[in-house]
């Protein structure tokens, strides 16, 4: 675009120009012909747009329909979660930190609880670990279902939305049975889980697990042989594993490119080593592989939940250490120490020895790490969540450069960004 005169620009526009696109325009070089094919159009995509996976704003530079550059602008749902977490005692941080990546709330809670348990050297009982695994894998299935529903919606296969949300309602019923809330359940506590599962949970869960694989088969049947879905996803926007590793990408995106890195297998936490499951890995690293990997992960998660449910050991559901976990209520009537512990925990909170830990887990989108620094008081001094979507978003630009803008929509859908995690 050869503009030799600078029109007067408002203050707002001048601030936006801090994002400089001039290196691109220099690359275009001298124009041949009348310049109509050389003009580049910068489109503002968002933060409010129909193909949204949250309030993501992209500045897309187009040459015709080819994407030449993408610059994501984020921060539109920045909630100051990390700063709020410094203000609250450890127990009260859990509901705050859960609302970060709002589709995988159990994972957020586990990352934080795991970090604090490492700091305070609290041992989590085996039953609590198995219960955690059940809820985590159910959450993974639920997150993939929402991803599938909204991605298919973006691609135009609108009826998938209703099918996926039908399954999601069943999972949310299970969450409601165990904790009372559908989303952001505050079920994971430091040292275990809040409550043991109620009567009837196991039967309902078994019923769900029996029918879930056939449902995933149905989703595959709907989409895997659909000509339009295949043409939009096959071969579009591939990126090799080395570039992804350099960009810090983990999770299904990395596995779709061929690298079978999964923290559940590599560095197992919370009894994942007791379960037998496979890691689906793709071959080409294009959009179709990302889609297929997540679809296959749903089968594997069902297997893990089955094994965890069958092997659920007896025992306490939370640690017995009264300085960390609330005593059971029947003890408050008889034991003085229980009453004092309860009082101290509820008013002041637990005290954690000073130090810094980083606790990484495998969230549905990649490596979710929680860095907690404690200074010995009852409130954390710094909580940082290494969110997978925040880092994965940097892969958008290399993926879509040179592709059509429709492929960019499909890639965004397959990237599965959750803006709550990105902006925190």
């Amino acid at each position: 675009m050869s503009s030799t005169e600078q029109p007067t620009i408002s203050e707002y526009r001048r601030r936006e120009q801090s994002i400089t696109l001039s290196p691109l325009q220099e690359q275009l070089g001298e124009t041949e012909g009348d310049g109509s094919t050389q003009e580049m159009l910068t489109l503002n995509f968002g933060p409010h747009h129909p193909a949204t996976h949250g309030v993501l704003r992209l500045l897309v530079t187009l040459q015709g329909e080819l994407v030449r550059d993408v610059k994501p602008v984020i921060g539109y749902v920045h909630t100051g979660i990390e700063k709020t977490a410094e203000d609250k005692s450890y127990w009260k941080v859990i509901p705050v930190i859960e609302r970060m990546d709002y589709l995988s709330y159990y994972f957020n809670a586990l990352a934080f609880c795991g970090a604090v348990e490492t700091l305070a050297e609290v041992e989590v009982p085996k039953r609590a670990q198995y219960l955690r695994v059940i809820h985590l894998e159910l959450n993974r299935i639920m997150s993939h279902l929402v991803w599938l529903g909204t991605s298919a919606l973006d691609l135009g296969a609108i009826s998938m939305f209703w099918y996926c949300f039908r399954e999601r309602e069943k999972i949310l019923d299970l969450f409601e049975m165990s904790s009372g809330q559908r989303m952001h359940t505050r079920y994971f506590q430091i040292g275990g889980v809040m409550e043991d599962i109620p009567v009837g949970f196991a039967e309902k869960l078994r019923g769900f697990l029996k029918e879930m694989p056939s449902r995933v088969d149905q989703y595959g049947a709907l989409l895997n042989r659909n000509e339009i879905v295949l043409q939009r996803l096959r071969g579009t926007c591939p990126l090799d594993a080395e570039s992804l590793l350099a960009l810090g990408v983990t999770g299904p995106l990395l596995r779709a490119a061929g690298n079978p890195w999964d923290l559940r297998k590599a560095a197992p936490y919370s009894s994942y080593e007791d379960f037998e499951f496979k890691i689906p890995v793709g071959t080409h690293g294009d959009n179709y592989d990302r889609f297929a990997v997540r679809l296959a992960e749903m089968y594997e998660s069902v297997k893990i939940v089955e094994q965890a449910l069958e092997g659920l050991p007896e025992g306490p559901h939370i640690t017995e250490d009264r300085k960390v976990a609330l005593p059971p209520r029947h003890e408050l009537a008889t034991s003085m120490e229980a009453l004092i512990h309860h009082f101290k925990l509820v008013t002041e909170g637990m005290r954690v020895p000073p130090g810094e830990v980083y606790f990484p887990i495998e969230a549905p989108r990649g490596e979710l790490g929680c860095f907690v620094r404690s200074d010995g008081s009852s409130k954390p001094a710094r909580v940082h969540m290494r969110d997978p979507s925040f880092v994965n978003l940097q892969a958008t630009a290399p993926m879509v450069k040179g592709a059509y803008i429709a492929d960019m929509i499909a890639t965004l859908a397959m990237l599965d960004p959750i803006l709550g995690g990105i902006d925190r």
Partner: protein
Amino acid sequence: MPDATGLELIAQELRDLQGKDVVTDTTFFRNQATVSVAPASIRAVLAQLREKGYAFLASVHGVDYYPQEPRLGVVYELLNMSRVDRIAVKLRVPTEAPDVESVTEDWPTANHQEREVYDMFGVLFHGHPDLRRILMPEDYEGHPQRRDFPIGGEPVIFTFNEAESVGSPE
């Protein structure tokens, strides 16, 4: 994790190749290894650790150590995928001179993460291709996650102050 002796060996190698003042401290706490380095040498340290196998930069994040000086810390979490080893590299800079060399050229993953540390703490990363605020509005003043930045928010409305609340008909 490298165990305590492994950590000391790594620290010794760093000192051998880069100079005595590079490593300021080593910490082995709860089975996690941390090496504290001088801010000026961060790029060289990360490059050396990359050759040792720690080729994946998992996270770059900032910490505010108020009231201890130097106040602002930046932590780099490295991961060795072939041996499933993690090591953290930490550096600390004072608020008056928060200058750190950016590692984005060697580790592209640090792009957005360094921007976030700049936005929230005010650490200036020299050599960063595009150091702007990422989470707060571009013209925001202040660095919110510093410990002396007020948390802000709205006052809780009770009956004695409900007349000043926004939605009240007054």
